[in-house]
């Protein structure tokens, strides 16, 4: 890189830093909680599945809002523990954030029975053969990706957590900037 280019990059970084300090609510100033991995932005894989009512969902149609894509299975202990906190997050209703659950490789009855017991207001997409989950390559179950309004993967939550806690709600609210 030439000296002038390096100088320009340095000035740009300084400007961005100033903006971040001036507007702490913006996503560039976003403080990322422990356990959330910042990803190099890249297009999210396709996600076209049906929910428990047979209603189709296509992630490509959700541009313009942040989407939380959560992979889970009823047999997975940490998923069972985390699910009620996702229900709490649903009740909190973070503006500009859409929550999308994806059940990995279970049948409709299993997913329905589990949610009916633990979080009856939540619904889930069904990935009966696990193919969609495989495409997304989560690091395990549960896994939660945050997809930005341009359809890019931006964050990955490692393992389970209390999504209803102040720390994570603040983080999610800050995404909109």
């Amino acid at each position, binding site marked *: 890189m030439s000296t002038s280019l390096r100088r320009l990059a340095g000035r740009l970084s300084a400007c961005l830093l100033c903006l971040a300090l001036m507007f702490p609510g913006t996503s560039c100033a976003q403080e990322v909680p*422990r356990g959330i991995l910042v990803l190099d932005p890249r297009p999210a894989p396709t996600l076209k599945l049906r929910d428990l009512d047979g209603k189709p969902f296509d992630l490509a149609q959700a541009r313009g809002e942040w989407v939380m894509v959560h992979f889970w*299975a009823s*047999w*997975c202990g*940490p998923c069972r523990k985390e699910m009620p906190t996702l229900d709490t997050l649903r009740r909190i209703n973070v503006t500009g954030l859409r929550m999308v659950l994806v059940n990995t490789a279970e049948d409709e009855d299993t997913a329905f029975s589990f949610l009916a017991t633990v979080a009856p207001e939540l619904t889930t997409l069904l990935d009966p053969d696990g193919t969609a989950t495989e495409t997304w390559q989560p690091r395990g179950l549960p896994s939660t990706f945050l997809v930005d309004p341009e359809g890019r993967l931006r964050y990955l939550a490692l393992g389970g957590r209390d999504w209803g806690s102040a720390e994570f709600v603040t983080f999610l609210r800050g995404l909109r900037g």
Partner: protein
Amino acid sequence: MRIAGTRVALVLAWLAPALPLPASAADPEPEGPRSLKLPGLTLHVNLPARDGLHAFYTGRGFPASALAVLDRACFVGISLRNPRDEVVWIDLERWQARGIDGKTVARIDRAGWRSLWEAANVPAGARATFGWTLLPESRDLRFDEPVGGNLTLVRTEQPFTLTLVLPTGTDRAGEPLVVEIPGLRCR
């Protein structure tokens, strides 16, 4: 156990007062879960019983004909959490199970299971679930990141010692953590 260049000979038998370990390592009884919290690692080991495995997998679409395949394997349930700021790696190729006769107990990897399930006509969804119940073959664990799943071995009737070698550092160049778990027995 080795942590950052310091060799600490940690064998789970040290925890005998706290854990339900057998009196004799040469002839251990099937045992319950073991848990460990160490400066470099939180580890939980559990060998699930055959009946439980049957119930779990048949409940998730495995045909009865596939159960015989499960019975030829030994499942070691392991969960780990990395409490360190540096990356800790799971790299199953570096783990080793050795029977009391000194011979290596072979591991069944994902490719091995894939061909077994294809031969047994196990449905795709059930195969996917099975895959998610296995430990990843290789994975970098970030700070506080958990991972859990089964390590699968060819079934052996003799007790065995499992040695986990966990490289550290983003480039795996750090001093590896080494944990030795003796007196395990397939259930």
